């Protein structure tokens, strides 16, 4: 199988400050990859570059085998219909109702009639567990958790093969964030999505990801399973995974037993 995302020899520089130095990353279809790293390590920048929102100083980013920077606009536009993005704050259009927010990408295609769009929107609302009576509301009248769910519905409405999640559980209470994680996991299984996410939340990270990409020292210091990641001796990993909070999250999924047996 050919990779969905291929980042090769990527350099990012802000003035004299080098964020990424010769960074490589490959994501295969169906994988759930989490990007982690300390603040300022360039997780969000990397994701924005993969999304084509920012241009790397050097290197190539290929999504679905098509180079994102330097391709024709129509080509990139085609890619954009095949991925969905959940922004950290949801980024719902505040001028549009919940219904219109989800219907917008479908209407932009100009391929389906309003009846179809209505049923599709309702289907997606059901999918993310939002009651229909909220469909006519404006984003300003909704809670943070609902905004995230509706933003996810909007990201999924064009049946993407690849989904980006930027801090999917940030700002949600533990209960909500757990149900959000469950939702993403079930959608991943059901729709066979490839997921790339940036997260700080260890519970989310541990319970969702197949692979973890740890960004530090301007490159990926580890790219592999959770067990492989925590086996690496690096101050960031020691702090992040094997600090007090990390141990709690890891012990909850029984990942520690394997680790202890290794050490």
């Amino acid at each position, binding site marked *: 199988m050919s990779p969905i995302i291929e980042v090769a020899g990527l350099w990012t520089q802000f003035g004299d400050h080098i964020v990424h130095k010769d960074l490589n990353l490959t994501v295969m279809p169906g994988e759930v990859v989490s990007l982690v790293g300390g603040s300022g390590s360039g997780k969000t920048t990397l994701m924005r570059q993969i999304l084509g929102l920012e241009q790397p100083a050097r290197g190539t980013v290929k999504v679905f085998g098509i180079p994102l920077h330097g391709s024709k606009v129509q080509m990139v536009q*085609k890619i954009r219909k095949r991925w969905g993005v959940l922004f950290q704050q949801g980024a719902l259009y505040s*001028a549009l109702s919940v219904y219109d927010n989800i219907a917008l990408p479908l209407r932009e295609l100009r391929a*389906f009639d309003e009846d*179809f769009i209505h049923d599709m929107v*309702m289907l997606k609302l059901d999918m993310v567990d939002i009651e229909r009576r909220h469909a006519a509301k404006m984003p300003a009248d909704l809670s943070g958790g609902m905004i995230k769910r509706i933003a996810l519905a909007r990201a999924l409405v064009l049946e993407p093969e690849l989904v980006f999640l930027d801090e999917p559980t940030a700002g949600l209470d533990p209960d909500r964030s757990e149900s959000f994680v469950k939702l993403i996991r079930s959608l991943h299984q059901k729709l066979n999505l490839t997921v790339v996410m940036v997260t700080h939340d260890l519970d989310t990270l541990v319970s969702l990801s197949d692979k973890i990409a740890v960004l530090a020292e301007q490159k990926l210091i580890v790219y592999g399973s959770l067990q492989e990641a925590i086996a690496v001796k690096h101050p960031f990993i020691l702090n992040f995974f094997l600090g007090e909070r990390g141990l709690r999250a890891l012990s909850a999924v029984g990942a520690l037993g394997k680790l202890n047996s290794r050490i």
Partner: protein
Amino acid sequence: MTTNNMQQAPAQAILDPEVKESRTGDGSPAVTLSGAWDIRALEARAKLLKTRLRLLAADSGRRWDLSPIQRLDHIGALLLWQAWGKRRPAQLALAPGHEVFFSNLDSAAGAAPRVPFDPVRLVRALGAGMLLAHEHLIGMVQLIGQILIDSFDLLRHPLRGPWREISASVFRVGTQALGITALVGFLIGVVLSYLSAEQLKSFGANVFIVNILGMGIIRELGPVIAAVLVAGRSGSAITAQLGVMRVTEELDALSVMGIPHTVRLILPKIVALAIAMPLLILWTSGIALFGGAIAASMELGISVNSFLSGLPAAVPTANIWLAMGKGIVFGALIALVACHFGLRVQPNTESLGIGTTNSVVTSITAVIIADAIFAVIFSDIGMSFL
């Protein structure tokens, strides 16, 4: 073009959605669907396929075989389901993995949240408009009251005043507006001078250009032009700034720290505009007169020197004080209206845009109304009679 692009993508060789009609062994009608029934394949031909499927679905005894479909998603499933009349056909064969796409479709057909027809809509709209006007009035009165209270506090404790904010605001609304007001003032002066010169020449009343420009610009045009420019430039900026602070909860942050935002944010702007506006008016009027004088010297042969030395006789000094007074009132009005609309912004982007537009329109209208009131009240002050 489309197919070419897609073929370059890995694992995405494009497949067409295919419909094949047939008969089963006992002669009953059947249809077999194959290929890709996902959004990528359907995007271009959803409407055609829907019509075709509707025709096929009209025969309710038809057997549907969907098992050869290679790719299916919710879009394809919904398209089929709508063609079937929003229910499953009696005889349906699905590939095992595709059941999930049809499983929750039945609930999707709920009634749309339609807005019911309201026979008294106009009455309601009128009432809502009145209530809104009332709300604006109350808000404005409250704001003015709060600012008066704050001003008295400020007089009692002058050291605690927001002096730094005031000086920063004077710089922003005053100093930084010098360029644009000069440019516009100069051009208005030139245009006005040319127009008047044409008329005066035909009457041989060349010298009266000084009176026309002097009175017109110093008393009316200078203040109004400067005020309109400042309303567009600083009024909108103030509304947008306060609006963004509302959106980002900065206003709430100030409140919970016990820092009244009227003192820190609004009072400085009103004071700053009340200080800067009269000065801007003097500046604008001066430049406009200069432009007028240059145009007059070219058109009528009145030298700039004699134009300027003729001014004091043509325009009594009271007019300058009147213009300054207008400036203070206009400046305070613009800031007040801008702050009022800024504080009313709801935490969403659309409200920010509407608030800014309303703020500029209202403050310009308020300036013109105030100018008319000035004209009536001070009609016999500062006039020069020959």
